[in-house]
């Protein structure tokens, strides 16, 4: 819950409300698909993300 509040706070601060549907969709669908794999270290040649 705290994280959701923080994300909302960030969207308000940056006035990037258009990102909200993208983030929500990703959290809902992406969460289901990806929760079982991955780690915080990105698999990329140059860790831009």
């Amino acid at each position: 819950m705290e994280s959701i509040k923080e994300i909302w706070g960030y969207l308000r601060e940056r006035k990037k409300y258009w990102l909200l549907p993208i983030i929500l969709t990703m959290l809902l669908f992406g969460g289901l698909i990806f929760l079982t794999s991955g780690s915080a270290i990105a698999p990329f040649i140059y860790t831009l993300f």
Partner: protein
Amino acid sequence: MATNILGISAYYHDSAAVLLADGEIIAAAQEERFTRKKHDPSFPSNAVRYVLDEGGMEMDDLCAISFYDKPYLKFERLLETYHEFAPKGLKSFLSAMPVWIKEKLFMRKLLNVELEKIGMGKPPRILFPEHHLSHAASAFFPSPFDEAAIVTIDGVGEWATTTIGHGQANLITILRQLDFPHSLGLLYSAFTYYCGFKVNSGEYKLMGLAPYGNPNTERFKKWKEIITNELTDLREDGSFLLNMDFFNYATGLTMCPEDKWEKLFGIPMRKPESELSQPYMDIALAIQQVTEEVVLRIAETAKQLAQSRYLVLAGGVALNCVSNGKLLEKGLFEDIWIQPASGDAGGALGAAYTAWHIWRNKERTVSGMDSMKGAYLGPGFGADDIRKVARKYDAPQKEYQDFDQLCTDTARLLEQGNVIGWFQGRMEYGPRALGNRSILGDPRNPEMQRKLNLKIKYREGFRPFAPSVMEEDIAEYFKLNNSTPYMLFVAPVREERRNPLPDGYDQGGLYERLYFQRSDIPAITHVDYSARIQSVNKSTNEKYWKLINAFKTRTGYGVLVNTSFNVRGEPIVCTPSEAYTCFMRTEMDYLVMGRFCFEKSRQPEWNEKSRWQEEYDLD
């Protein structure tokens, strides 16, 4: 209320932890030194445990933990970049998002979980200063200046890739910012990739390769023009746009589209570890010169905007010591100070400083010296720890009661052509070994460069070595009057020490040029007569200074070859046990740890079950 702050950088590359107590740096270390995995990006559990131990603290003693970037802002950049380039980048999007949805979007929770796992109590409040503010803070707050222009340049943080700022007392103001995808760091990395070196670790190899390039050829001139006209749109103020048709990194899984670059430059992308031919040296020189030009323009703009006599630098590009040397030589500023841990590891320090001076609004005092304590901020070990290692390996050694005598004897061994592992005091913070975890040699020895590269470090033969020189003697050897304690400036060897080049030198092969004796200190004189200098100050590192002084007493030369205590792909050694292991695996002749001297010929036979060379990925 507690006045201690823990700074952390993690999850991208070079994770690190720093402890500040009342604004003073107590300890700082990179995680790679503990896990023995170079550029380790994982959460720095070992480094956090170490810095808290060093300060005699637990989590309860901290008033805040400061993480070195803002995850939401970075996520915003990712989403907007993918949106901008869609439908390109789907594959990259799909590989990036799982880690964000699962963990990085919930960074505060992730950090709390990791910190609690360490078992040193409940972590306090976590702060998230911006990535480039962390870099700026790591450059300005420990610098010896009360006010200064600040320049930070790296690959990318959240959005920013370059910032110009102004530091005054305990405040930092960002005056200008260049955003992703237009990045000098990533431009340099794209060339690193094209020349067959590893991105994010091989950049310094490209820098070392550049002096082999021939600036008098048509090919070089044409390539430099391609970089400035086709790949970039460079403006007078140092800002630039990259032509993203020629770069993949925003949405792809490589740095650049090989086919387009091959068409542009007319040479194939170099395969890693393959032979280095002249075209790659020329291309390295071309991008190096363009980088220098951009950095110079940014510094000029910083001077104009900040109206300051001093400059401080941080960010990965600030480790380009050739560019730093050119900037210093230009004389734009009265003095320049560069954060020794300029890469992401230094972000942990900057984040901690940001919390102290900006969040807590604590005053800053400047003493005329920087606050980095010579960057000797890592773990130190005593005589008992060394004795334990000697016992464990049944290793004969000689213990000296008199340190001066140890220096005299070590200087004699160096003069005789021996290569010596030198392990003293606390480990360095940042990528350079500065005389506490170093391998040393005689710079006058014509065979030393070859021996160190091929028999000790097991690395590419073309790579140059750096000198450590007594601070008071710098001007005797180099065209440089400033001190350079962190090996961050390249300057020319003095003309009177140079040997004239033979006819046709420029046309010779790489190794023909490399092995020509260019000066009376050939082991540290690069092919363009330059050297990456470390000046050693008696009060900052007395033991190392004494050794160089003893060498000077014997030979008349107050300078040594200094390379980091590791083999290729290995993080610099941290403990006496790692130092002994590295000593035994290589053809190093002696190991001096604390007051103990280990002679290779007297050591028991070294047997390892596995092939240790496979322990480390090539860098």
